[in-house]
Structures are given as structure tokens and as C-alpha cells.
């Protein structure tokens, strides 16, 4: 059921990301301040936004699980958080590369954007031991959902705190006044963000398809064992 529309979605993702990278290297102008290094922005920031959005989406799916009691929502929440953590490590790695190129250091502890994102990723790393230390499937799903909701609520709070405290070393991308990006940079950024969002949805559906198939196989095995 999750594999429905996966192939066209995968194609749309591939086309959008290819277009985004083409825009990054052949259309978007060089940044006056940072030069060519600023091209990292187009992969780093969309990945961070989608990862944070994925954490919040995981929380919303967890609410649906607790409200309905349907464990498929817990599985959806788990997969959303799983992919967000993977993207989160990508954000930390690309952020470290950008920091080294811009500031001469791989990590800067007094930069609130970097440290707050690390805190979010580390918070979500707790999700795995919590989830897999509970054997009973119903309790596992329930406890995981409670964690996903609490942590998902923390993400926007953390984002707001960073916006209030940031040292203005990171460029503002989206603000109430429309951001600081000129039109061609903004277009490139929005296409990259769309590509990253499509990538997230594609990977989410792909992993759910694999998990669903795995559960079906387990059921078939049990049925075969009973029949034998």
C-alpha cells in the first residue's frame, strides 16, 4: 500500500534534485561575501529544514497513533524520525565542512545554530534505545509516540530560541520581510528545498514499503508454521 506512486515520486525527486544542482552551479550567482563556498548553503539548509520538518511530522503522526490506536501511524512516525536523523547527520557533516571553509574551524561551540541542531539530533538519538528497549509492541508504540510528540514540540521551540539568539553569522533565509536572498538565489534555494522534500517523502515511502513487506513475510511464515 505504501509503494503506490513510489516510482513516479522517485522520478520527480531525481528530476527536481538534478534541476536544483544545475541551478546551484550554473545559474545562482556567487555570493559577494563567501564566494564559491556559499554553494554548500543549497544542500545544507534545505536538508536541515526537511530534517526538522520530518521530526515535527513524526510528532504529528505519533498524535494520530495515540488518538486512533492504529499502530501503522506509529510505524509512519518511526520511519519519519529515522530518515530525519539520517538527514540530521548529513546536516551536521555539511555544516562542519561549511564552518571549516568559512571560519577555519570544523566546529564552533559558541554558534547557536550549530549547537542547537546538534542538541536536537542527540535528543532524537535517544529515541532508538527507548523504542527498542521495550519488547511489548503496544507499549513500544505508545512510549515511542509520547517521546515523538514531546521531542517534536521541542523542535519549533528550539528554532525560535535560535532565531532570537543567533549571532547573525548565518545568513537569514526566510524572514517576515522575505529574507535576504536575491531572486535568483531564492529560486535556486526553493527548488533545492522542493527536491529535498520530495526526497524525504520518497525515502519515507520506500522504507515503509520495506517494513510493510517484512511484516507480511513474518505473517506468512507464522501461517506456514501453523499449517505445518
Amino acid at each position, binding site marked *: 500500500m505504501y509503494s503506490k506512486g513510489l516510482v513516479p515520486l522517485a522520478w520527480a525527486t531525481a528530476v527536481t534534485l538534478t534541476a536544483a544542482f544545475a541551478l546551484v552551479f550554473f545559474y545562482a550567482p556567487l555570493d559577494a561575501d563567501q564566494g564559491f563556498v556559499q554553494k554548500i548553503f543549497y544542500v545544507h539548509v534545505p536538508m536541515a529544514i526537511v530534517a526538522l520538518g520530518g521530526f515535527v511530522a513524526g510528532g504529528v503522526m505519533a498524535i494520530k497513533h495515540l488518538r486512533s490506536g492504529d499502530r501503522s501511524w506509529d510505524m509512519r512516525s518511526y520511519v519519519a524520525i529515522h530518515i530525519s536523523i*539520517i538527514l540530521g547527520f548529513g546536516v551536521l557533516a555539511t555544516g562542519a565542512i561549511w564552518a571549516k571553509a568559512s571560519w577555519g574551524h570544523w566546529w564552533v561551540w559558541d554558534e547557536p545554530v550549530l549547537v542547537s541542531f546538534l542538541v536536537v539530533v542527540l535528543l532524537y538519538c535517544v529515541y532508538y534505545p527507548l523504542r527498542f528497549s521495550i519488547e511489548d509492541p503496544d507499549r513500544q508504540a505508545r512510549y515511542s509516540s509520547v517521546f515523538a510528540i514531546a521531542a517534536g514540540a521541542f523542535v519549533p521551540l528550539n528554532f525560535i530560541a535560535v532565531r532570537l539568539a543567533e549571532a547573525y553569522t548565518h545568513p537569514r533565509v526566510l524572514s517576515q520581510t522575505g529574507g535576504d536572498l536575491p531572486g535568483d538565489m531564492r529560486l535556486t534555494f526553493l527548488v533545492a528545498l522542493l527536491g529535498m522534500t520530495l526526497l524525504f517523502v520518497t525515502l519515507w515511502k520506500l522504507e515503509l514499503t520495506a517494513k510493510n513487506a517484512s511484516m507480511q513475510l513474518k505473517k506468512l511464515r507464522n501461517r506456514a508454521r501453523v499449517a505445518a
Partner: protein
Amino acid sequence: MPALPLDEAGKYVAGAYVVFVALILVYVAIIGAKIARIDREIGELAGEDDE
């Protein structure tokens, strides 16, 4: 810090994009291997059923 010259900046930019692509490829390879294993096991199960 002043902007890095293109040859030096290129290494960092390439590094960041390679990290992103590698991350996605490794993930897709792991999930692909999992789906292939499930497919094989379903085939084995269907074979047992035929016997």
C-alpha cells in the same frame, strides 16, 4: 575571513555534496538489499508451499 579562492573552496563544496549523495546512496542500498532479501524469502516460502 575573506572568501576562499575557487580551487580551495571547490574541495569543500565537492566534499559537502559528496557527503549528501553518499548518505542517500548508502541508505537506498541498505533498503534495496532489505527488499531483495524479503523478495527472495517470499520466493523460498512460495517454493515450500508448492512442494
